């Protein structure tokens, strides 16, 4: 498949770099795991190089053979799922356009007997994930989001939230392969576009058949579940019109329907949810988190979301945007437009002088404000068209992005004259992955 070749080509440089970083961290777990371990850790980077060659030359026939065998295994797995809960490890994965979100359930109620029976590779995975907060150069565990003492499917443990950039998928697959994930006879439930895009890579590179799930279904399942088990998951900003003083307040989402669910990832999807199983994608927009970061990179030369946000927090968008008062000298009263409202995003940049006097921070701020307000405006129209008054914003664009959340809260409140309420969830971008995990435990 051309995707495979493309993927390896693309990842070559980053892959080796990542692998090397991952490698040194492994040995100290591996001390207790004498067999396979040494082999795998030694061959880690070498295998990556070999894999490239293999996937290019060996191509189709090998993968067909694998597919037949693994699908039989999959069927057996599904059979056992129906009787019991699935074997560990329990993962849920959401492969988006920019980020891969992984949730991992770490059982804390492991009995001695269980511990005895636990295969080495499983233990290794558990230790690797739970004893680190960073994986490679780009993988990160959001420790502050960890849900301890969570009861899932009769087991108690901690839910861990991990993310890494989608463009590091090759390195991740390499690790999965080296951890002998496929030998654990578990099912990897994955959602997001990448579950489809990388299906063949999982099969070829890690000998894993993904259980592909629809992203919207997972998203809603994840939101509803987390909200039901985590107190104060949902919150809103009190007095959103006063940006300086507005504060987060818990919002019990007891009777959530109908609600508008706005998922802001690379792009944006807007769903109208009427019940657990009754929902509809109302619309979406391509102006999302990817646009913010993409434009910021082009305009300021930054390279990460955090960097872009940091710059935005220091900038002043009114240097870049043309406001109503810039045109009318004050409010445009005839149409009830306040002078501070943005008349034209980046409108001041039509002038050469202003282009020359503006700072990178200003540009980053304007980009953030433009994208955020646009999402707010489309959301508001959807809420009106669907007659829904409650809007829940999720997605990783909102991660550490209080600025956008407050802007959204403000925009919803101001333009609807208090009719619409903007709600946010603490686990922002992980609901798809949680939904995928729930699907593993309780197939619908």
């Amino acid at each position, binding site marked *: 498949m051309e*995707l495979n070749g493309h993927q390896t080509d693309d990842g070559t440089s980053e892959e080796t770099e990542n692998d090397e970083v991952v490698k040194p961290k492994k040995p100290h777990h591996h001390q207790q795991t004498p067999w396979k371990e040494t082999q795998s850790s030694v061959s880690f980077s070498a295998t990556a190089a070999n894999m490239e060659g293999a996937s290019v030359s060996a191509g189709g026939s090998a993968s067909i053979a694998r597919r037949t065998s693994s699908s039989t295994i999959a069927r057996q797995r599904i059979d056992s799922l129906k009787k019991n809960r699935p074997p560990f490890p329990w993962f849920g994965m959401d492969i*988006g*356009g*920019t980020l891969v979100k992984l949730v991992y359930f770490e059982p804390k109620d492991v009995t001695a007997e269980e511990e005895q029976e636990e295969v080495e590779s499983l233990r290794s995975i558990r230790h690797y994930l739970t004893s680190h907060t960073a994986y490679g150069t780009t993988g990160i565990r959001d420790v502050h989001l960890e849900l301890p003492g969570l009861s899932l499917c009769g087991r108690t443990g901690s839910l861990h939230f991990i993310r890494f950039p989608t463009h590091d998928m090759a390195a991740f697959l390499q690790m999965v392969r080296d951890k002998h994930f496929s030998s654990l006879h578990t099912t990897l439930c994955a959602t*997001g*576009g*990448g579950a*489809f*895009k990388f*299906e063949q890579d999982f099969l070829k590179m890690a000998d894993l058949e993904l259980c592909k799930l*629809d992203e*919207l279904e997972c998203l809603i399942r994840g939101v509803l579940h987390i909200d039901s088990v985590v107190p104060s998951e949902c919150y809103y900003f009190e007095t959103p019109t006063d940006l300086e003083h507005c504060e987060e307040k818990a919002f019990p989402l007891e009777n959530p329907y109908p609600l508008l669910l706005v998922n802001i*990832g*690379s*792009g944006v999807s807007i769903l109208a949810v009427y019940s657990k199983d009754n929902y509809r*994608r109302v*619309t979406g*927009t*391509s*102006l999302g*988190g*990817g*646009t913010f*970061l*993409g*434009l*910021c*990179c*082009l*305009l300021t*030369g*930054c*390279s990460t979301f955090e960097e872009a946000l940091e710059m935005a927090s220091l900038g002043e968008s009114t240097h*870049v*945007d*043309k406001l109503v008062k810039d*045109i009318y000298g004050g409010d445009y009263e*005839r*149409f009830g*437009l306040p002078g501070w*409202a*943005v*008349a*034209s*995003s*980046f*409108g*001041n*940049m*039509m002038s*050469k002088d202003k*282009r020359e006097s503006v700072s990178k921070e200003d*540009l980053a701020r304007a980009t953030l404000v*433009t994208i955020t307000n*646009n999402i707010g*405006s*489309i959301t508001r*129209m959807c809420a*009106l*068209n669907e007659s829904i008054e409650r809007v829940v914003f999720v997605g990783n664009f909102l991660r550490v992005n209080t600025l956008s959340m407050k802007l959204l809260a403000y925009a919803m409140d101001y333009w609807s004259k208090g009719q619409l309420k903007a709600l946010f969830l603490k686990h922002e971008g992980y609901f798809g992955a949680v939904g995928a995990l729930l699907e593993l435990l309780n197939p619908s």
Partner: protein
Amino acid sequence: MAGHVGGSEGGSNSMDKSITLPPDEIFRNLENAKRFAIDIGGSLTKLAYYSTVQHKVAKVRSFDHSVKEAEGDPLYEISVQEEITARLHFIKFENAYIETCLDFIKDHLVNTETKVIKATGGGAYKFKDLIEKKLKLKVDKEDEMTCLIKGCNFVLKNIPHEAFVYAKHADPEFRFQNTHPDIFPYLLINIGSGVSIVKVESEDKFERIGGSSIGGGTFWGLGALLTKTKRFDELLQLASKGQHSNVDMLVKDIYGGAYESLGLTGDLIASSFGKSATTDKQFSKEDMAKSLLHMISNDIGQLACLYARLHNLSRVYFGGFFIRGHPVTMHTITYSINFFTKGEVQALFLRHEGYLGTIGAFLKGAEEDNPNQYSWGENYAGSSGLMSVSPDINPMQRARSGTFDMLEMDRLDRQLVNLPLLQDPSSYIPDTMDLTEDSHAREYWLYCFEEALDGVVKRAVASRPDLPEATEQAEKFRQKYRHKLQTLRQQPFAYGSLTVRSLLDTREHCLNEFNFPDPYSKIKQQENDMALKYYQKVVRALEDLSWEQRQFALVRGLLAGNVFDWGAKAVSDVLETDPGFGFEQAKQQLQERPWLVDAYNQWIERLKGEPHKCALFFVDNSGIDIILGVFPFVRELLLRGTQVVLASNSGPALNDVTNNELQILTERIAGMDPVIQSAVKDDRLTLVQSGSSSPCLDLSRLDKVLATVVRERRTDLVIIEGMGRAIHTNYYAALSCESLKLAVIKNSWLAERLGGKIFSVVFKYEVPPQMQVQH
């Protein structure tokens, strides 16, 4: 009053400026100008003024009846008189010309009543002092949005084919819309530096229901930052050459293909600029500009759809500098609207979009003249027409002198309304053939009109023996009309859909422009004189026939009369070489039954039934046609007890009988024929004017009086006669009462197209479906 602004005295000495204005063509009729308005945008200035134009009009006046006329004396005299009509002038030029233009206006402005100039647009403030200093007029600022809406209402009401849909890959790419008789409610999306979304509910009621800050300014500002390209046009040029998929993250970049369960195809943009979130890759200016264009167009399209849905509106017009004649943005907006509404809403654009602000500002200033009380018509001779701004599409653009674009609107004496008998006014299309869509037909007709030009010039000169410079003027007419034809060959959509009617009307407008108000007046006079002499003989011959024979003879008489048509080249050739070609000979030219379209039997069956209450007859040519064809037919109708309304042109067109002439002819015939006389006396025979000066007929723009008469008399039969009115137009017009459309096809190309030969007969008798049940 001063004479015309002519090239002779208007220009040379006063035009010693860095930029030379072609004064013959722009800022016409300035000496009578009043009520100025100006709309100064970011790069273009639009100026409006109202002036009166002295027109030559041919008047016919009956001779005194008490004096017994000698044999051979004409029955009426023709004189060319001056008439003053109102005209609106709109001129668009680049802001760079503003000072030169103001100087020019100052030098030529004679009227001193004017004290203020209405101003709108962002630049009005910037140029306020300059305008006040140069013109000594007080600048009076008007709200931009109010002007825009007023202007929009005005063009939608007064210019048929104002709105169009744009289809990049279709031929032609412009598809003009039939203006709905009720233009309200609609949504206007104005894409300037930001976006305003305005719901317009009536002439005075509109509301800004929303907007967006992501607009033309975002494209320009962000585009300039990303590509280091300063000009808006250049950014669009860049965008048209780019590949957005290099910069945008598509659905297939995330999914590897389509997101099938949601029906999202792989090529859909999932995240604009989603691929540019990296520092180790360079992106081309073209690709970034394209991605930006898509991002903004899609966003605007999406909001437009959300607002349209929320307010349940399906007519959505787009305007503002982002759109203004740019095929690139019209395409992306159209695409976006189609995507988001799944084709339920069409993106509509306006031919005179750039003029809306200035038209509105002008109307605000002219409220005391009640411009909205009148109907206005686009003057094809004085208007530049829609020009594509893309030089790739429009090679004519380069050849045009300067960058001046003009629109002129003539005030029509009467208010124009729909014929109340149209079955569905909103779907009525006057023209049978759209030459913009039919390239073969277009080529043929453009060739035809070019070929006929020599003859028209000759007749125009002959019609003005009183005018010493007639030859010179006729030559100017030739140049102007030929240039229009060339323009239309390049840009068939310049004045809306190109039709035989618009070609004919353009010719009439050009003839008027050079003071040839009625080139056929003498010919019409001769023909009328000759035909009157035969009237009684024809009527007597008909009376001797049996009922059945007479009905057939009457129809054949109508058709034979219709062979006499100077508008058709085949006939004008015969008439010029053989003046003795008479009524009887004409009948022999007619096709034998069965005719090309032959509903004669149904018509006769109908005549055996109840008489019609009232017949409305749209008449065609002077001379034999009206006198020996139409009148005997009308006489029979009257004798059956049917009232008759004769509708004729308000102004001259070719050899068509005008209302003025018809009045004299009717008087004369009444003098000879007691049937006609009593009918006139009892008001059973009425003459009305159609409101038109075209050889064709637009049933959606008819004199209001005609509409009233038609309604009052409970008209139940409409007769439309002649190629121009029944074939080129109205062939497919559906009426809510019985109708008779008849014509002789005097053009072999058209006859062939319809599957017949030259002099084939069309006799179309139609009964609307709802009435067929009763019969």
